[in-house]
């Protein structure tokens, strides 16, 4: 069981309410953001235009000519209180495998090209993140990133890009990185990046400021819904879904890329019901159990 502190609400301009659950990132804050925004979506309140769950906060856009900002804020506060005990929270989830070629030449080339915008380090982004997290061995670092089960905690920045945060890992073990001091104007599509405590995959070539550590063999955006993991949405990520990275070498990476091109690739997916209560009491053991038959 856990209880979160009171959410901080802020009226932004004439159309938005920002709700900050906590300043720090934690899985529990995100569970609450998912629970409240799911509930709000279910209630279908006229005048609400956007409901946006974020990592440790959420944002609501409304039309003030339909619903008064203060009435809506009071209403959100009521929902917020009922969802402060997240132990009752369950949601449909899935584990999806993401094959990643770590320390690959594509992302290394971009990191080199934009190094003037990065923190002053003369090494590759991969090596920087590895060393900054206390690893001296490439294999150990890759193992750490692939062992963790990352939960999608938010989408945004570009269509289908998602933030993923590791579950069942103590704060001091979470892989973290500082961001570029000024964003790159380009990032290769499917690049894997680390920024703060989050792991992301860039859906397409776009700006970006996360340190680049590898490249995914599979897309996270599929406009034509060609692949099995995209039956419900053109985006692979949804808040509450879990991603499991798997390290591949060049040969397998190229094989997967080819299968994707031919439309024959099959995503490894497991559907299940996530219990926040089980997670909050058993943490690592619960994650282990989820992974048993994957």
């Amino acid at each position, binding site marked *: 069981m856990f209880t979160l502190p009171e959410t901080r609400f802020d*009226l*932004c301009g004439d*159309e938005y309410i920002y709700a900050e659950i906590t300043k720090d*990132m934690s899985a529990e804050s995100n569970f609450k953001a998912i629970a409240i925004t799911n509930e709000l979506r279910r209630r279908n309140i006229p005048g609400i235009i956007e409901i946006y769950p974020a990592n440790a906060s959420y944002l609501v856009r409304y039309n003030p000519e339909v619903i008064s900002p203060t009435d809506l804020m009071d209403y959100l506060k009521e929902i917020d209180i009922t969802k402060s005990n997240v132990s009752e929270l369950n949601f449909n989830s899935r584990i999806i495998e993401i094959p990643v070629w770590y320390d690959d030449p594509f992302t290394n080339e971009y990191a080199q090209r934009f190094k003037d915008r990065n923190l002053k380090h003369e090494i590759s982004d991969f090596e920087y993140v590895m060393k900054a997290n206390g690893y001296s061995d490439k294999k150990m670092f890759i193992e750490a990133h692939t062992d963790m089960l990352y939960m999608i905690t938010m989408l945004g920045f*570009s269509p289908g890009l998602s933030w993923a945060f590791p579950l069942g890992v103590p704060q001091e073990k979470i892989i*973290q990185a500082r*961001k570029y001091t000024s964003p790159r104007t380009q990032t290769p599509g499917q690049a894997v990046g680390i920024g703060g*405590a*989050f792991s992301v995959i860039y859906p397409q070539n776009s700006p970006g400021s996360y340190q680049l550590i590898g490249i995914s063999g599979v897309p996270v955006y599929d406009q034509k819904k060609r692949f099995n993991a995209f039956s419900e949405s053109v985006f692979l990520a949804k808040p509450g879904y879990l991603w499991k990275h798997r390290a591949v070498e060049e040969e397998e990476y190229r094989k997967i890329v080819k299968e994707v091109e031919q439309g024959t690739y099959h995503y490894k997916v497991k559907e299940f019901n996530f219990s926040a209560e089980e997670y909050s009491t058993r943490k690592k053991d619960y994650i282990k159990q989820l992974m048993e038959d994957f």
Partner: protein
Amino acid sequence: MFKIVKPGLKATIQDMGRYGYYHLGVPPSGAADKFSFQLGNLLLGNPVDVAALEITLLGPEIEVRKNTVINITGAPINVFINSREVPMWENIEVKKGDIISFEYKKNSGGVFTFICVSGGISHPKVLESRSTYLLGDFDGYLSKKLEAGDEIMLSETLPGAFKLVGKSLKESDIPSFPNDIDVHAVMGLTSSRITDTGIRNFLTNEWKVDIESNRVAYRLKGPTIDYADYNPPFGSGGSYANVVDMAYPIGAILLPNPEEVIVLLNDGTGGGGFVSMGTVISPDLDLLAQARPFSTLRFHAVTVEQALHRRLERKKKLKDIQENL
């Protein structure tokens, strides 16, 4: 149909925006100056939200492929039909084979000009809207700047459209496009991460619009704004500039470093981890978007009540103009 002969600086298809997908990373997009955009549609008797072309500073050259009625609204620009100059804010008949061209207006203000056409643009919608989002990956013309050779599909010209030719907006109803503007904002968001002096510096100094501005965001240069001496929260990346990545409102005023302020516009990236200090009120976003690079800006803090009042005033103005058309 309109055929793009020369693309100009940046021409895109826009309507009133795309809603309900922001949480998936798809921003609202839509006309950069909705006031001018809506006036163009109202003048033609169109529903206010049908799609039009948005052009930027240097206009395109367009070959008209059917007889219809258009008007040009928004930022001042010199407009020509077959080399004959025609007025803005007035319905003009165009015929198959006509060439619409533009010339940059010096010593003037404004960035975005709209070409509205009777019935609107009819390209297939993506996610329920015909607004272009350049960083998207949408089919058709909705994720790109229009290029030479592109063919813009038009809806059926509205019944009675030709009777509206010559109809124009009263001189006093035409919006102005100054290079020196006052913008109102509700302060807040994660502003506790900025010093009081920093907030004061923001509100009491003048700002210049930087050349690196676009539909995603306007970058502003001005005084230094210091971050408060505050331990960055866990997960944010460990810099004074960062918060745990959050969803930004459109209009959010971000502080990526002490020397730069960024205001998000309609193509704003939904999420990010920069410290923010407030939100520009929605009725002022058109004004901001129309501020040319090197324009001067002053920010004024307002309450939510004052923001709502300004919003209603503007809505009333649009309605009054519509009633007097």
